[in-house]
């Protein structure tokens, strides 16, 4: 695995984790404030995960599109 592929893998990893963290955090505080426990936390985690995977998927798609064109891809680390 090249250095660049490792970079893409790390980028995708953080994309997915950030979605979960944000969704979980917002859900947790909505639960605390509005007493919706545990629905806001659960739906926040699910929505955050979906959003994170969507971002990760887009990053991978950009990378493989550039790789398929055979470009020396400078767009992605």
């Amino acid at each position, binding site marked *: 695995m090249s250095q660049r592929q490792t*970079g893409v893998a*790390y*980028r995708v990893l*953080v*994309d997915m*984790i*950030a*979605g979960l*963290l*944000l969704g979980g955090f917002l859900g947790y505080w909505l639960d605390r404030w509005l007493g919706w426990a545990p629905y806001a936390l659960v739906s926040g985690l699910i*929505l*955050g995960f*979906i*959003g*994170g995977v*969507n*971002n990760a998927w*887009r990053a991978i798609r950009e990378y493989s599109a550039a790789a398929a064109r055979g470009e020396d891809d*400078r*767009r*992605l*680390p």
Partner: protein
Amino acid sequence: MAEMHSPMEQFEIKRLLTWKIGGLDVSFTNSSSWMIIAVILATAVFVVGMRRRALVPGKLQSAAEVGYEFIAGMVRDNVGDEGKKYFPFILTLFIFILFCNVLGLVPYSFTVTSHIVVTFAMAIFVMVGVTLIGFARHGLHFLSFFVPKGVPAALLLLLVPIEIISYLIRPFSLSIRLFANMLAGHTMLKVFGGFVVMMGLLGGWAPLAFIVVLTGLELLIAFLQAYVFAILTCLYLNDALHLSH
């Protein structure tokens, strides 16, 4: 035997001068002082480096020129000609993060970018700015960015909220990436530094050798993360300018 310090102690914010404005704590901290040092050093490299404007550049001038051309190329490749207007901002962002990261590796210094408030402030600034640029350029048509092309109308009900959520996650992933890398790297260095002291003169050489290797890796990461922050800013800017998916 030296006293033991927690590996997280290095990230502590200390007030150097205590200032309060209307109940708000705006003290001058070690974090602020290292930001100022980074700004002064970065300015010095560019101002002093470019003072002579020699045709055959010296060391400092080469460094300044390499940094300039590196970012200029990045903006040209990723944003295109419209990106020229935003080049000064991206260069400043890159140089500031790079200097903060590298200065953090100096012993007894403080790593500004290891705090999520700092990286998040930069990321949210970038994202709000990029969104405003998108609206200023395309008006309400910018909202079509959230509508994937070639999708049945029924699915749009599901996909548009997902696209909006994904967009809102971006500043968080941008800031977490930089902050987590800095935090993890410096904690690792400190933990292995603790091993050296604990294992003493006999066994301490192995972790010491590891620290040497790790410091080299951290230097690479310091550069790489500044690069990643700058290039993702370019990509987001490109999305807003060209509404490309």
